[in-house]
């Protein structure tokens, strides 16, 4: 199913880019398909592990601001998810689509609420660990604090 959506949206030479993004869309899909009354943290944590195996270190979720803020508590209490931080990317008004294609994937237009799109980024410290394990001979890994 995600493949169809991918081809529907990406019809030009961005095909490899779209492959990279496909798994980020899956995360997006998980949030949409799980109603707010059920914890999505265990599913998201499993998904993150799979994403990281594929070297994908970010994903987006869309929901009401309140829903995403509530989700933060679950993130904080999950050993996998608390390695991620987040940033607000866009607000999709009720009854509208985002002007950014990626934020419209795997979601239906919400007729009632504005939807906040939040990107979740694996923290730099965790990325450094991963890249170090790849044994690049001239990669040290730097966090902002190292430069101060």
């Amino acid at each position, binding site marked *: 199913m995600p493949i169809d959506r991918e081809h529907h949206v990406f019809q030009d030479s961005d095909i490899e880019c779209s492959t990279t993004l496909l798994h980020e869309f899956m995360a997006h899909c998980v949030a949409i398909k799980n109603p707010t009354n059920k914890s999505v943290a265990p599913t998201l944590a499993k998904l993150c592990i799979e994403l990281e195996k594929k070297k994908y270190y970010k994903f987006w979720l869309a929901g009401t*601001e309140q829903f995403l803020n509530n989700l933060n508590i679950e993130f904080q209490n999950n050993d996998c998810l608390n390695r991620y*931080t987040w940033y607000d990317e866009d607000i999709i008004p009720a009854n509208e689509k985002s002007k950014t294609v990626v934020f419209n994937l795997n979601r239906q237009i919400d007729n009632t609420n504005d939807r906040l799109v939040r990107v979740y980024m694996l923290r730099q410290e965790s990325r450094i660990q991963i890249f170090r394990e790849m044994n690049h001979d001239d990669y040290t890994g730097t966090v902002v604090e190292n430069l101060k």
Partner: protein
Amino acid sequence: METREITADELHYVKFMFNVDPRIEKKTFTPEQIDRFILHLKDGLEKHTTMVLMSFTDGDPVQMYIAYLFEKIATGYVGLVKTIKTSVHFKTSARMLAPAFDLLAEILQERGYYKVLMTASERNHNIRNLIMRQCSTHLGTYDWYDEVVIPRNEKSGVYFYDINRLSVNTESSVVVRMFVLKQEYRIPLLKKSNPAYVGTLNAN
């Protein structure tokens, strides 16, 4: 010093810069490679998928930032940064480069693009981050994340990262680093068009 976007009709300034010094870092580009690159830029400028931000002193270009726009994911990608002479110490060139980065950040933020990718060796990234943050208004408002480490003499294998690079780097590994506007700076931008949005600070 004046800093502005140039148009497809002004690409002779890019040629001028390569005529003065055909190198980027330690690699020298042939006239044919430069001409092909300028054609690539012309195409991008006409399609509004590319921006060339250039600073001028007394009418002559002294530095440029070339950025690509990925509308589908609301992300900018800095494909090339060049000062008129590569031999200039970065403490000097940083002062020349900062206004162009700041202009780029402002243009991207106006479009709702809060992420920008840059590729460089880890060392050059760190030098830039350390020195340029002191003379840039905007660089310090971004966090950064390493997305990929591309080994020397290789491509990343991710089309998105490879397409707009001028060549494979033979000197060192290259780090694709994503600069992400900090949450506290996004909140006022998002509030402008969405009064109902409250905005929550993250724990960074």
